[in-house]
């Protein structure tokens, strides 16, 4: 089945220690998204790629970076995680302007 996969599902890191979350898709969608979601809130878009074009949201901290080496994979790098970065991170994919399909998420804990 075509799907969006996120690894790892749970990530524990230490304050200030870099961490990378990964997302892959078999849907062959040209748009990939990273969202941050804190409890009981709507997902907050961090950035997205339309093909190789990177689009950063204005309020996304510089601490968050992303890479998309090919159509199938996209990575979220958090350079120096703070306690406030503990959250669920959701990856999604879509065709432009169409339905977004989400992965299962990575729950990040910062100690």
């Amino acid at each position, binding site marked *: 089945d075509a799907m969006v996969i996120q690894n790892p599902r749970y990530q524990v890191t230490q304050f200030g220690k870099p961490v990378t979350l990964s997302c892959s898709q078999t849907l062959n969608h040209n748009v990939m*998204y990273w969202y941050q*979601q804190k409890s*009981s809130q*709507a997902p907050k878009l961090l950035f997205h790629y339309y093909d190789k074009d990177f689009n950063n949201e204005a309020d996304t901290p510089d601490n968050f970076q992303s890479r998309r080496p090919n159509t199938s994979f996209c990575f979220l790098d958090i350079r120096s995680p703070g306690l406030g970065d503990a959250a669920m991170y959701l990856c999604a994919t879509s065709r432009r302007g169409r339905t*977004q399909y989400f992965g299962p998420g990575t729950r990040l804990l910062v100690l």
Partner: protein
Amino acid sequence: AQTVTQSQPEMSVQEAETVTLSCTYDTSENNYYLFWYKQPPSRQMILVIRQEAYKQQNATENRFSVNFQKAAKSFSLKISDSQLGDTAMYFCAFVFGNTDKLIFGTGTRLQVFP
């Protein structure tokens, strides 16, 4: 401004009953898609139903249907024969034109009781 409003933070329903979740939105665009997503305790965001704004016919997916009122900018979700597995947070959202951004509402937490 493009906004989505879900005025019911929490709702509850008894198993096998019907419940309607409200959603209103604001946009000046004419071409857009509307969605309801479900997020159970596992936190996986699951597409429940979608509606193309140019279609007058209300979308239906098994027990889930929408009441789409374009002029009123209203997009409510009706869940018939509620099941315990319907317990989740429900988000209303839309995307317009050729933009890539999904505009979310604040969500409605639905609890289904036996």
